[in-house]
């Protein structure tokens, strides 16, 4: 039984995004493992220790360059990786089908981890589609996990400070949230070791997935413009307070 961790190769959140084509960005920027997926990898490495004969397998759909994120995942604790290569843009419907097919072709899942969302497309849905494709239960924004023999108890943060406690049968799909753990940032020896770990490369076409009837197509991208025009509020503290109340009352109409 394997633990699978689905990772996405995404632009660094601090990178400057430059739009090139109508719906493409300049990709000559730093890409890394989607931050929520780092929590997923870390949790997978933690629970691996609880069971014998269990491997952590990182799975990614992406371009050839996504191998770098799989190497990072292996430096953080994954034993091996599968890269499903494609140069074409993939929406979450196609991505979930590809991940499900690659996992089923590889072995028997115990727990499948994902991040709760990716910081590039911010779709918030691949984990649900993956679970539906595999006929498994799914929990999102998981912030605590206890594994037992045939079930897992998970805590999900629905709203800040509102925690749903779930009991789920395994296999299950669990989408990691930030509160789950502190990521295992790799040491130099971890990175060296990860270079020797195997990455199985397959193409999306080899998976022979039926083309989905439904989809989401990005037509255009445009930069988000900040159109604020800051105006000072000045005077005594009491005068400023009155001005703020006036804005709340007459302009924003919230009080």
């Amino acid at each position, binding site marked *: 039984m394997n633990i699978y961790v689905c990772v996405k190769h995404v632009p660094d*959140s601090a990178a400057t995004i430059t739009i090139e084509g109508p719906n493409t960005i300049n990709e000559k920027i730093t890409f890394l493992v989607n931050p929520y997926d780092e929590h997923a990898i870390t949790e997978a490495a933690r629970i691996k220790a609880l069971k014998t004969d269990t491997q952590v397998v990182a799975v990614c759909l992406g371009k050839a360059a996504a191998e770098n994120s799989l190497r990072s995942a292996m430096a953080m604790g994954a034993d091996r990786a599968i890269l499903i290569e494609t140069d074409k843009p993939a929406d979450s419907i196609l991505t979930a089908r590809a991940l499900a097919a690659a996992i089923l072709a590889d072995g028997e899942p115990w727990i499948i981890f994902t991040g709760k969302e990716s910081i590039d497309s911010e779709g918030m849905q691949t984990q649900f589609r993956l679970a539906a494709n595999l006929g498994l239960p799914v929990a999102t924004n998981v912030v605590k996990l206890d594994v037992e023999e045939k079930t897992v108890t998970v805590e999900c943060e629905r709203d800040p400070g509102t*925690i749903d406690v779930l009991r789920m049968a395994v296999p299950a799909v669990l989408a990691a949230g930030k509160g789950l753990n502190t990521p295992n940032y790799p040491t130099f020896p971890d990175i060296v070791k990860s270079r020797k770990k195997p990455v199985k490369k397959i193409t999306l076409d080899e998976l022979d997935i039926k083309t989905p009837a439904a*989809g989401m*197509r990005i037509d255009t991208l445009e930069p*988000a413009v900040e159109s604020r025009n800051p105006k*000072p509020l000045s005077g005594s503290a009491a005068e*400023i307070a009155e001005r703020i109340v006036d804005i709340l009352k007459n302009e924003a109409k919230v009080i």
Partner: protein
Amino acid sequence: MRSIGLLIELKNGQVKDTNFGMATAVHAQDREIVALMVDTSVDTAKSSLETHGVTRIINIKTGCSGWNPSLQADAVAAAMEAFAIDSLVGLTSPTGRELLPRIAAKLDAPLIMDCLAIDPEARRVKTSQYSGKTIATITLNGNHFIYGLRPNAVPAVKQPANADIVDFEWAATPEDGYQVIETRMEEGGGQFLAEADIIISGGRGMKSGENFSLLDDCARHMGAAIGASRVAVDNGWVPYAMQVGQTGVKVNPKVYIAVGISGSIQHFAGMKTAKTIIAINTDENAAIMANCDYYVVGDLFEILPELEKALARAVS
């Protein structure tokens, strides 16, 4: 007539204001707007929904009580099939983040969360990507279409209509291997920060956790939720549940008051969509001062007590 479904959310038994923006976002002369409500009392909701153009309310009864997103998503998908509703709009709220993707996965339907605008005719939306740095225009293709609207992205406009109520009894079969045991409230929780209309947040300038009571005093008068920057959370002044930003909660309030917050890129990623941003900071060169609507160069310890008094007078 063409119809579009709205997944309605209640708060304390009332239809949350953010729901009405959904009705406005998809309103058209020749479109029936159908409110879908799961296991709630529709009678109290009827008049406010009618005020905003809802022409039909489907009262979905699962026979179960309590929060179970898997079961509720199944019930909504079943109602959509039963009433031939091919398009559904919900909120990108904590509830919507659980229900909408489950409905979309069940129907194998396209879904875009956090929409800023929705064109149900063209099945085209605008949404932000790359931490809000770009706006994408996306076309959906399929047999069903699911949209998650960003709360407060579309201001509600009144549109009087008359609605009939239709009951939809749906025999729930809970999903195998998925059970909600309990829902627990933690420290700093229950504020519904992600959906608040007004948020007042404190950062490094607050100097201590005790000083957050100054924000609390103001928040009480205006019904605001209280947020914090990462610095305030990392210093242990307030719980993580209050953190606004890239790695905390993303909020879309009508008014965001940033008190003693410098405004890092990561903080902005969580609140840049606020309609009006008011910044209070002693440092006139703080990043937030150049990226807000109103700024005050001043000492928060002088301004907050005055603001509390002024608010108390204004709302009394």
